[in-house]
């Protein structure tokens, strides 16, 4: 019996030892050592970028993104620069301290106050909350070309990319402002999402607020889509969900006809495809640029301006513009100026027709507002210009995705033309 028990115990032990499994270590070193190594490496990566880093900063996942430039030095000094409304619209730099510490993983902390970076986390306005941003960033991947991090409190994704060594900081920030001027200024058109060459029902609107409202045609559905401008276009905070192709970074293409997804070039955002339709649906002033017009147009413009200046002593801000009047359902030739601190807007009306794609027909009606009718008789050249405008025009632009300037060229006489700017 005893021997039997011995056999059973022996066999059982052998069986159990077979279940024993040596768990292989996933990591070659303990967590503390790996964290210390990561801290050293991140510090080194940060300070080795000679011309610093571009930080794409979102205070939270539902507000506009801001670009800051940062230069980290081995002695713990960091210089932060920006050029945006939060710093008064001018190029501004601020110097403070930084450190890479072990916290929730490796964390880049800006641990003395920086006039630029801490604006986003300063809780003074509104009291206790401020803009709600972070100043400590948990790094979850790093390389010489890209550091991905998340705000420690908000979890908002913050990217750092090295800046080209030859790039001047002010010029770089200007290029971003320039992109804003190209893409998003007053009256800028809605952008239509196009996938594989097919127009979707999704319209990206309100880009000048740095937060798209994406609406679906024929529905009340809207979706907020924060983004940050880049020197070549913009990056959405989250990939747009409509194409299901993960499009996030949009780049203005070479002929400025589309914003093309860097992730999948079949995903595009397009502006108006018919300029005549666009300006007939947009109630903004298209102001004539005196330096960009044919000689015959220029003669009339000069005549009008001189006539206004001679009739109204001390007059200022004289301009000519074309605009669509929604209420009246007509186009007008607007002659505007400031006299005795009053803004005068004289208008002569035109019926209009969309003759073809990018072709607008204007036909003088012989009426206008009271100032327009009065000045058509007293201002030399005003009526002549209205007559010249009563014609059909081929419309063209240099930035089709977001027309800021539109050239009107007479269809039956290409030698007569003028450039107008959206204001």
């Amino acid at each position, binding site marked *: 019996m005893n021997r039997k028990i011995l056999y059973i115990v022996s066999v059982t032990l052998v069986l159990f030892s077979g279940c024993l499994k040596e768990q292989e270590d996933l990591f070659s070193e303990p967590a503390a050592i790996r964290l210390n190594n990561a801290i050293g490496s991140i510090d080194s990566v940060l300070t080795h970028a000679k011309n610093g880093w571009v930080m794409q900063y979102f205070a939270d996942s539902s507000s506009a993104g801001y670009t800051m430039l940062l230069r980290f030095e081995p002695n713990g000094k960091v210089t932060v620069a920006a050029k945006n409304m939060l710093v008064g619209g001018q190029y501004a730099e601020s110097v403070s301290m930084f450190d890479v510490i072990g916290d929730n993983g490796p964390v880049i902390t800006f641990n*003395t106050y920086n006039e630029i970076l801490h604006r986003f986390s300063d809780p*003074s306005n509104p009291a206790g*909350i*401020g803009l709600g941003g972070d100043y400590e960033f948990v790094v979850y991947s790093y390389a010489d070309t890209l550091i991905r991090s998340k705000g420690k409190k908000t979890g908002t994704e913050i990217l750092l990319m090295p800046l080209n060594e030859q790039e001047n900081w002010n010029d770089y920030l200007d290029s971003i402002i320039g992109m804003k001027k190209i893409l998003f200024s007053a009256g800028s058109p809605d952008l239509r999402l196009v996938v594989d060459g097919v127009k979707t029902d999704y319209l990206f609107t309100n880009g000048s607020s740095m937060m798209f409202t994406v609406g679906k045609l024929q529905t009340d559905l809207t979706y907020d889509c924060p983004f940050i401008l880049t020197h070549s276009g913009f990056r959405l905070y989250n990939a747009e969900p409509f194409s299901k192709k993960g499009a996030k970074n949009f780049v203005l293409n070479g002929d400025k006809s589309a914003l093309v997804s860097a992730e999948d070039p079949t995903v595009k955002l397009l502006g108006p495809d018919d300029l005549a339709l666009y300006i007939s649906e947009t109630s903004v002033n298209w102001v004539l640029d005196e330096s960009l017009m044919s000689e015959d147009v220029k003669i009339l413009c000069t005549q009008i301006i001189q006539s206004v200046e001679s009739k109204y002593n001390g007059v200022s801000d004289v301009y000519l513009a074309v605009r669509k009047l929604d209420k009246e359902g007509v186009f007008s030739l607007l002659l505007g100026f400031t006299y005795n601190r009053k803004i005068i807007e004289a208008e002569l009306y035109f019926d209009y027709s969309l003759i073809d794609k990018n072709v607008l027909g204007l036909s003088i009606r012989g009426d206008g507002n009271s100032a327009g009718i009065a000045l058509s008789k007293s201002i030399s050249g005003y009526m002549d210009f209205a007559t010249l405008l009563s014609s059909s025009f081929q419309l063209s632009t240099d930035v089709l995705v977001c027309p800021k300037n539109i050239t009107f060229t007479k269809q039956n006489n290409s030698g007569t033309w003028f450039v107008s700017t959206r204001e």
Partner: protein
Amino acid sequence: MNKITFILIAICIFSSFYACKEDEFTDSVFQDAPAIDPTSPAYNFEMWLESNFRKPYNLSFQYRMEDVGSDQDYNLVPASLEKSKQLAQLIKYLWFDVYASMVDEEFLKKYGPRMIHLIGSAAYNPNSGTMLLGTAEGGIKVTLYSCNDLDLTSFSQNNLDLMNEYYFKTMHHEFTHILHQTKDYPRSFEKISAGKYSPMGWQYRTDEEAAKLGFISTYAGSEAREDFVEIIANYLVKSDKDWNAVVAMAGTEGASIINQKLTVCTDWLLEKWNIDIAKMRAEILRRQQSLDASFYNNDL
């Protein structure tokens, strides 16, 4: 009892006596001064802190904000390096040097905080509309908020009043917490205004309403221990004119209560700490009045 048991008991008894031995002031418990790059913008300041706080007072002066060491209930930002330098010099001049000259040099080495943590912003309580100016934790750490609001470009009386409210009073307020956490204040103090404290509603009282109830400030009306330290802190930093103005606003009854509290505080400081509050106040006010633009060392 065998021999081994006897020896073990004897060792335990000796060990426990040894543990009761009072600690002497020794070298700093903090690491040696950090190896800081001489080209760092903070190098001179770090060296100054080393010789003025860490070495003599065993005190870690944390001006580079440590988020984990701050109150996570608040949204806060760090103090600027510039303001930290200014405030560090003021803390030394108006707090540490005062105790060194008026009590003795060992006093703050023994009872002073082991850490001072500077925070740039206020700690706002949006729900109650209040903000925290400072905290003292367990007699170890003093946190001062709103450091970025320090303005040393003007030494007008208005600005001094503001600095008193935000920083100087807060320093003495928080340090007095440390003192009474070490040697408790008389229980009789709590009876003076018993029933009049309003922990949740003190901020809705006006200065005058608080004074008439016998509180030197609205915050003093929150609870007895705050009342106790507010009496001392306000008395130390307020000029005769300002102190008397509050007492006058309090009316006969309120003034009597405030004076009664001041007497308890005065006696407690003298008996427990050998501190003559009147003399210390005179020294603090003298130093406050001597502040001018030349006070601040720009080379730090």
